[in-house]
């Protein structure tokens, strides 16, 4: 790459002005190149998935692949899993984190360390262990589609935990709680009417991250023999690459939208609320 060679060359202090301009060109070139390379597979999958040779734009590959399948069921499965895993994570983590921040801040370091473990254990190892353990401990459990929910909660834990923890740190929880209590609010009123509205941004961020991850999860679902949308995509891809490309394009686009929503929503929050601590 040409950029590497240019970097050490511009080292002459006298030519400071041309140096800056030259560096800018290199940087813009790198970013531009990255943009093109990032987008190439995206553009290609749209072009490949929504055309037929000699016919131009066509939805036929996708329609043919979807005809006679139960894609609606599989999409619904993925949607259900996304919603349930997200709700599950929030119900488990929000009260836990609030309690710890209020009553036992010294435990936060330990729980944060715990929350990173799923980052260290690859999904495939988790499936293998879960398969081994639950087949002996509770054979009926893995049959249900909903048995995936706790594992998705585990896989998304590092991201969701961080997002919620950062949100709680950015508000002055103790002061809010004490103020609300001194005005006579019951704990659940404080939680519902004061704390949660203040955490809206990080709740939404955590939910979007969780949904985006569940949308693309393949290893756990496939190996535990549940049919979700990514599993369907691989089945289609075995003999209909055009339809698979079209579905991939849609998946990537939706993921991006979810995460773009996240960064747009959280950007002003972090700047306006980053101050207190």
């Amino acid at each position, binding site marked *: 790459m040409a950029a590497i060679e240019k970097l050490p060359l511009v080292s002459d202090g006298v030519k400071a002005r041309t140096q800056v301009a030259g560096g800018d060109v290199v940087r813009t070139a790198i970013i531009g190149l990255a943009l093109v390379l990032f987008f190439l597979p995206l553009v290609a999958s749209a072009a490949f998935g929504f055309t037929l040779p000699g016919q131009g734009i066509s939805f036929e590959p996708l329609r043919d692949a979807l005809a006679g399948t139960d894609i609606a069921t599989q999409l619904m499965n993925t949607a259900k899993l996304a919603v349930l895993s997200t709700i599950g994570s929030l119900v488990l983590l929000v009260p836990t984190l609030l309690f710890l921040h209020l009553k036992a801040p010294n435990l936060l370091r330990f729980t944060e360390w715990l929350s990173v473990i799923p980052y260290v254990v690859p999904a495939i190892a988790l499936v293998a262990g879960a398969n081994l353990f639950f087949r002996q401990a509770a054979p009926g459990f893995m049959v249900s589609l909903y048995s995936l929910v706790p594992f998705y909660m585990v896989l998304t834990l590092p991201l969701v935990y961080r997002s919620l923890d950062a949100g709680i740190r950015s508000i002055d929880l103790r002061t809010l709680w004490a103020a609300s209590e001194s005005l006579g609010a019951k704990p659940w009123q404080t939680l519902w009417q004061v704390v949660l509205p203040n955490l809206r941004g990080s709740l939404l961020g955590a939910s979007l991250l969780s949904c985006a991850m569940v949308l693309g999860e393949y290893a756990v679902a496939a190996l535990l023999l549940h049919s979700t949308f990514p599993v369907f995509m691989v089945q289609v891809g075995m003999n209909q690459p055009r339809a698979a490309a079209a579905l991939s394009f849609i998946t*990537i686009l939706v993921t991006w939208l979810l*995460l773009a929503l996240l960064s747009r929503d959280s950007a002003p929050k972090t700047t306006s609320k980053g101050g207190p601590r």
Partner: protein
Amino acid sequence: MTLNSTLQRVSWRGLRQRGLPGWVGALPLLMFLALFLILPIAANVVTSFWVNGAFSFSAMAQLLEPQYLDAFIQTFNLSLLTAAVGGVLGLLLAWALATGRKPAWLQNLVLSFSAVASQMGGVALAFAFIATLGVQGFATQAILGLTGWDLSQDIQLASFSGLALVYLYFQIPLMAILMLPAFGALKKQWQEAANSLGASRLRYLLDIALPIMWPSIAGSLLLLFANSFGAYATAYALAGGRVNLVPILIGFFISGDVMNDESFAAALVTGMVVVVVAAMGLRSLAERKANRWLR
């Protein structure tokens, strides 16, 4: 609010403070993780040392058989290669994103896409690459039409180098995202001070920037390594059984496509977890060192 009820509430609060120690709040999370993360992994580790009802190293020793050792070597090489190449290119991208100023919309677009691409992996990425570089792919056909070179003959996606190429798609942006804070921590004054003392930019880079940044660089490289060592979906969707990788082998064992030896399957997983945990352990050491400068 009557005085009485206030008193009641205060005493109730006092009671809760005394009666409920802090660790009770962490209990649901602890129990959840114990059941769905720790116990499964522990069961797996135990099984890999438990052959035919007795403690034994025989399953772990089987990992050294040529076919399985080869899988570990291939996975190791793939992770090393994509971490190294992805690391260098990602570092370059992070530098451009952290220090470049114009045009802002381009910076933001690439930044937001890096965040998405770094988490992508998975089957969607595999099919997007088949659509790009496969035999009928978009780029393959365009280049064939322009130059007459059929690149799908030389770059086979279902091969070691093909997988490496696809992994770079998430490794480069991941490295960039991980390194951005480290670039932010480089104070402008340090460079000005170095320049005023007559240091060239190369000298500044070698004597100041790199020594400060190497713990973050090493830590990020280790994460990249672990990231690709455990990757399953992309490899499976692209190559299936055509590349001998540990995650793919484990997948075959779980779905029962190959002989049903529970202990050995568990041993494969234990082997992989050991490698990944070692990489991540080293990473946390590197991170501790890096944090000294990030404040």
